[in-house]
């Protein structure tokens, strides 16, 4: 899953450690989220969305699902 955490964080001038403290997680976790190595749980995704005041779907984007085909059979 891709996400736009890094540009949003940098827009606000926050360090990874500052964002980590705002979310109640470690800096390593923020780094793992930003680099796409870790997809957050739903509760954490909601906390992130609330912090940035954006809907979840504008922050996280599935990178291997064809647009408009979610839940449909391909063929």
């Amino acid at each position: 899953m891709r996400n736009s955490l890094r540009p949003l964080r940098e827009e606000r001038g926050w360090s990874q450690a500052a964002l980590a403290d705002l979310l109640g997680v470690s800096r390593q976790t923020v780094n793992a989220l930003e680099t796409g190595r870790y997809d957050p749980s739903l509760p954490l995704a909601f906390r992130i969305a609330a912090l940035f005041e954006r809907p979840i779907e504008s922050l996280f984007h599935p990178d291997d699902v064809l647009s408009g085909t979610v839940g449909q059979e391909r063929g």
Partner: protein
Amino acid sequence: MTSDLDTARRSAGGRSRATAYLRDFLPGILGYIVVLALVGAFGDLDGETPTRFGWAMLPVVPAVWLGWAVLRHLRRVDEYEQVVLLRGLSVGFAVAMLAAVVLGMLAVAGLDLLIAPWLVFAAGMTSWAVATGILNAR
């Protein structure tokens, strides 16, 4: 890509969790060292007295304390750190089981290795530490 904002500095929460872990872990490891020294000095593990079994079990107390400290840490850290910690633990467990099977089969074949349990312990702990280090460095 990194920026000036991407320093390796820990978050305040990360620091407090690491401090709490050390506060839990240090008494256990210090206790383990002290107990081992006492057992070595007074335990008479090579002797014939029945009390030597009690002495031999004494280091289990701080070892349980250390396990409790790791469990508390596991409950304290966030979801990503839990994944890393549990992946490291699972690698350690798998390696320890493999080492146990290897040494068990060698024992069946007649190899009398007194330190076999310690080799299992060392294999598990080392692989846990290495796996966790690699996962954290990624």
